[in-house]
């Protein structure tokens, strides 16, 4: 390997590391999570075995074992020989154990009763000892947590010794609290009405923002400033960069002040007798207008910068020659400028499609998907599913499945764009050199 190649590898290493860490690893993890039922209640790092109310329901409904469920759900405390033996091992004072021996055979239905009796022993065990003792006499496994199958089965055997192997397997499956592999997320996605709606919303969002602003308006800005004196052009480009450099929360807050029912629009229109209203959330169409404007004003600046610099690279003699030939501005734009901008347009289209597909921050801050889900785009719905639940149960697995769809769509679109814009030709070696 020659040294320039080595240098090349060296230079690309940091970028490669970033790509792997920030793109490949998350994508792989998303793909893995997408095939699980992972949620807050299952946890991410694995589970345990617990005879919870849910597990009992599972035994009743899916394994047809109502009598087993009934027995497992019973609570009870019993002072017995094995319990006393365990106390000795646990280091409980021998006098207390001796005194407890006098109570052998006694049973208690509830923890409270059992602990009351233990607390009233002549030796007055401390709270910690009371808990240790009651644990040893607890003959119920309801809600107890076991780290391994063996521990669970041992506990089950202590209350129901004669279960079959199949019944053991059922109890293991029903009581497992962690996540399991499943394709259910995709079935669920295909069957719920919200899916189609989010898809359509996403298409509307990307199509309008991209064509109207990220390409269309960006091109208008680039071309108009191209024909301006450089000082004025610099000023206007600076103005259109402001939305991008403002902190998003403040930027959206300004829009809210403009659009809300106590905001500028309502106050201004109120002078003409128009009733004040929340213009942003008044109807689905209103919300879309604001969502596209809010995102478009930020997005337009990137296209503007790229197109402007590409315009500077067009050889001036071409433009002078066309003017000598009597071409109008419009003809210049159409026949000289646009053909030269094919590569930047491809780049901005590709880049912005992908970034719009996954961006939801400004929508979250402005309409939060409202009114009534009409601006809930796919990425926002993914966020709401995976990281937002009023009752504390975040659905990571289902959220990842939704995110995976975005990854697939993104990769597919990138390939389609490369083909559409004839990428091979664009990167072909110029015939003049070599």
């Amino acid at each position, binding site marked *: 390997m020659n040294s320039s190649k080595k240098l090349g590898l060296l230079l690309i290493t940091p970028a490669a590391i970033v790509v792997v860490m920030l793109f490949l690893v998350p994508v792989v993890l998303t793909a893995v999570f997408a095939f699980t039922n992972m*949620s*807050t*209640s*299952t*946890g991410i*790092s694995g589970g*345990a075995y*617990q005879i*919870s*109310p*849910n597990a*009992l*329901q599972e035994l009743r*409904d899916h394994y047809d074992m109502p009598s087993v469920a009934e027995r497992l759900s019973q609570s009870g405390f019993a002072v017995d020989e094995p319990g006393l033996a365990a106390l000795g091992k646990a280091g409980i004072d021998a006098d207390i154990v001796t005194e407890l021996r006098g109570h052998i055979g006694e049973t208690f239905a509830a*923890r*409270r009763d059992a*602990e*009351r009796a233990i*607390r009233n022993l002549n030796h007055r065990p401390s*709270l*910690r000892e*009371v*808990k240790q003792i009651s*644990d040893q006499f607890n003959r119920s496994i*309801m*809600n107890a*947590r076991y780290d391994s199958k063996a521990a669970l089965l041992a506990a089950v055997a202590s209350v129901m010794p004669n279960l079959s192997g199949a019944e053991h397997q059922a109890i293991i499956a029903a009581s497992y*609290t962690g996540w399991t592999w499943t394709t259910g997320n995709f*079935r*669920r996605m295909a*069957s*719920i*009405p*919200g899916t189609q709606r989010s898809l359509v919303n996403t298409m509307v969002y990307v199509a309008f923002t991209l064509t109207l602003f990220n390409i269309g308006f960006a091109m208008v800005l680039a071309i108009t400033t191209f024909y301006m004196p450089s000082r004025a052009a610099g000023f206007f480009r600076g103005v259109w960069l402001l939305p991008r450099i403002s902190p998003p929360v403040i930027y959206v807050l300004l829009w809210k002040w403009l659009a*809300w*029912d*106590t905001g500028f629009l309502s106050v201004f229109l109120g002078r003409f007798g128009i*009733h004040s*209203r*929340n213009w942003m*959330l*008044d*109807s*689905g169409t209103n919300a879309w207008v604001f969502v596209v404007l809010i995102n478009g004003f930020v997005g337009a600046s990137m296209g503007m910068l790229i197109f402007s610099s590409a315009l500077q690279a067009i050889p001036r003699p071409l433009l002078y020659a066309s003017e000598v030939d009597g071409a109008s501005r419009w003809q210049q734009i159409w026949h000289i400028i646009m053909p030269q901008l094919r590569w930047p347009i491809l780049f901005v289209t590709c880049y912005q499609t992908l970034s719009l597909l996954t961006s939801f921050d400004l929508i979250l801050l402005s*309409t*939060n998907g*409202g*009114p*009534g*889900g*009409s601006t809930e785009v796919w990425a926002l719905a993914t966020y709401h599913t995976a*990281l*937002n*639940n*009023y*009752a*504390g*149960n*975040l*659905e990571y697995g289902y959220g990842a499945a939704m995110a995976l769809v975005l990854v697939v769509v993104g990769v597919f679109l990138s390939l389609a764009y490369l083909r559409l814009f004839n990428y091979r030709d664009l990167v072909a070696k110029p015939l003049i050199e070599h």
Partner: protein
Amino acid sequence: MMDMSGQWRALAVAAMLAVSAGAASAKDVTITVWAGGTGPTDAYRLDAIEIAAGLLTREAALQGEALTIKVEKRAYPGWDDFKQALTLSAEAGTAPDIVASGHEDIAPWAQSGLIVPIESYIDLDSWPINDIYPNLMQIASYGGVLYGLPQDAESRPFFFWRPHLKAIGYSDAEIDALPAKVKAGAYTLANVLDDARKMQDKGVVKPGYGFYPRPLNGPDYWQFYRSFGGEMDDPKLGKLVFDKAAMGRFYKFFVDAVAAGVTRKNHIGTPFDQWYTEVATGKAGIWQGGTWHYARYTGQEGLKDFFGTVQFSLVPAGDKAGKPNTLTHPIVYLLTKHNDKAKMEIAAKLIEIASEPRINALHAIRSAHLAIAKQESNIPLYSNDRWTREATARLLPFANAMPNNPNFGVYWNVMWKGLESAWTGQKTVEEAIADDETELRSSLGDKIVIR
């Protein structure tokens, strides 16, 4: 006789003993406590743990243990970011020791092993636990096991602006009798729409301000489902219940309110700050809020004569199938799982001490929440407060709570999405209910009873 060097040696040994004994019994513990949905008036949710730490330190000192407890407090004003932060920190193994959150989190967090049953660490017979209302203890339990201790209680009543009621022909006596009328089922949600309409026709409130409910998602909306006879779960089966007819009537009530022009179509999403100011200054006629709003109305919003300007009642019945009701959504102190058992014991003790009626009364009065324990009404600070006294008597006996069920969050999301889409006119009530049903069937299967 001991010589000097002997004396010195003895002293040195004694000093060393003292130092090592001190080292053996001195203990520095840092307890972190996080609370969700906790604004400035709810500060005692966290401060109570700090007060408890002071008391526990003194108790330990009397038993010869030099225990110092540092309490690190963190309040999250909202719920979403709090639940995100907590679940993710638990996955990262950096969860706080004590969490104050809604009781509905118990089921999913118990399954994931994030929290442990507090009954393994405290004596259920001891003061003040033996004085806490049994129904609240029930709400803090899951599968018959006590996971947390109730931190507060509240309720989500209807409020009426008295001058506006007068403007549409109510006498003072009629307004005073209104809560009883609601309780008897003689004043229903249909009457709410009528009166709201009348207020707007009279011009005392602007269009869309006749009936002004909570502007964002919350447990409050389950009350309307219950007003139309809906049940959230079937405790016998241990399953959630989706009552299509009741849910449809509940959605239709809001669609009707929009059609009648008394509630705005775009009401959801109104900033809460704006909403508070509006309802506390008579811009709305009838609204639905929370008992703790009293602190905000009379404090930050500057409402001087609350009882002279506002009446409050249960949420009226929607129809014959339903009953007037209200919902209590207690916050519970939960104990998170850690490897350091001794530290968990200290955290549990702090929760226990913080439940002391006198300490809890500080929170109740500061934030206008309701008592968790019977003896709290014997504390003058609490019993002399007209709001807590009247709200407790008028509302708490009729309060229900949401079920502790790990799948309730999925159901709740579906309910809310459906309501929002019907309310804003994106779907008809029938479409919304049909979509709810499809989504519930595919996401919860037989974990929910659909009828």
